[in-house]
Each structure stands twice: as C-alpha cells, then as structure tokens.
C-alpha cells in the first residue's frame, strides 16, 4: 500500500472471470504520514482507507472483467462494517465477488481479511465509464500490469 498515492493493492493473487472473483494482497506500510494523525502514538489504518481498499479490489475486478476497456468509478457503498483494528505492518487480503453485472455498472461484495479473520466488508457499487483520456487508460493499464492483473485478465 502507498497510502498517500491511493495505491491500496500490492498484488493480485487470483482473478477468476468466470466466477467474478478477485483476491489481492495489501501490505500496510510500517510508516506513513497518515499514521501521524490517526492517531499520534497509536497508529491505526482509518476505516475509510479500508473502504478504499475494498473499492480498489472491486474496481480491479471490474477492470479485469471488462478487459481494461472501462474505468470503474466508486458510486456507492452499503452495509460497510469495520470489525477489527488494522495496524502498521499487517498483510491484508482484499477480495471482491461480483454480485450483479448491470448495464454500465457492477455491484460487488468486498471483504478484507487478516489470516482468514474478517476485518471489514461492504457492498460496493461502481459505474463503468469510458476513460476520459488515453493517458489515464494507459496509466491504469500500467498499474494493472504492475500488480499482476493485466496478464490474468487478458489471458
């Protein structure tokens, strides 16, 4: 995770287009300016960043399912729950399952676990839009390749 750059996913471990499933790894950094404020002397990853991590897992799932041709945008969250504290150095697993393949949008059930224990979960809605610029499309493809999604999604 590079929290300051909103790069929440480090690697995609599993992408299954048929099942509409993705599983990824998110390593919480040991240090970040985020932890200086949340909280001083007692660092905890903010719940909003756990939500963002579930959003990214869901976004990469939809990116992969649409073969990197559409940009998923976070448009809604329901049933968000944050069950345990996340602290620096933890290695999280972020997963998402497609529960609805709509026209121009998708809905996922996303989850974060630590050693098999549920940390957070939410139902996430993402709109699928055309990339506003070719540069952004290229950058997203580069990022997808970096975390190992591009190879699995286009296979």
């Amino acid at each position, binding site marked *: 995770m590079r929290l300051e750059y909103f790069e929440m996913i480090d690697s995609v471990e599993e992408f299954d287009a048929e099942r509409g499933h993705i599983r990824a790894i998110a390593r919480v950094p040991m240090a970040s300016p985020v932890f200086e404020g949340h909280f001083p002397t007692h660092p905890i990853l903010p719940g909003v960043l756990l939500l963002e991590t579930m959003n990214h897992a869901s976004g990469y799932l939809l990116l992969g399912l649409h073969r990197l041709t559409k940009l998923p945008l976070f*448009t*809604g969250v329901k049933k968000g729950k944050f069950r345990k504290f996340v602290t620096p150095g933890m290695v999280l697993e972020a997963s998402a399952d497609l529960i*609805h*393949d*709509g*026209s*121009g*949008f998708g809905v996922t059930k996303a989850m974060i676990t630590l050693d098999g224990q549920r940390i957070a979960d939410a139902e996430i*809605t993402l*709109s699928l839009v055309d990339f506003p610029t070719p540069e952004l499309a290229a950058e997203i493809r580069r990022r997808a390749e970096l975390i190992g999604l591009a190879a699995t999604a286009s296979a």
Partner: protein
Amino acid sequence: MSSTFEIVAGVIAETSEIPLEKITPEVHAIDDLGIDSLDFLDIVFALDKKFGIKIPLEAWTEDVNQGRAKVEDYFVLKNLCARIDELVAAKNA
C-alpha cells in the same frame, strides 16, 4: 400478483425515499421525482434482481444521445414499465 408498475413504484419509494403516493405512471423519474443518476443505479440494480433481467441502461443512453429515442421513452414510469415488460417477455420467449 403485483403489476410491473406496482413493483417499480415500490422499488423507487424504498430506494429513493419518495412517498408512494407521488409515484404515478405518468411521472418522469428525473424531472418530476428528482431521481439522480446514482439513485437510478440502485433502482436498476433492484429491478434487475426483481425481474431477472438486465436493463440495458448503456444502450438506452446511447439511443437518447444519438437521437433515436427521447428521454421520456425510458424515464416516464409507464414507458419504463413497458420496456421492463418487453425485457421480461424476451427473457421468457
């Protein structure tokens, strides 16, 4: 058995917190009820599930943008219900 309109009205009322009595077949979902695009996604999600269809929002948007259809053709509720009935009939054909 509930009519298509009753189901659609119920979904809109529940999703958008609009009183059921304001939702009639003649109203325009956007202009009259003030439903925005994000609420509409939730409504379409619920309708897709209830009717077992995939409402082709992208194709409808394209039709409107290309001048092949008017916004009213899809967003006045009686027309929306007619489109849903067509999709259900096509699914069952």
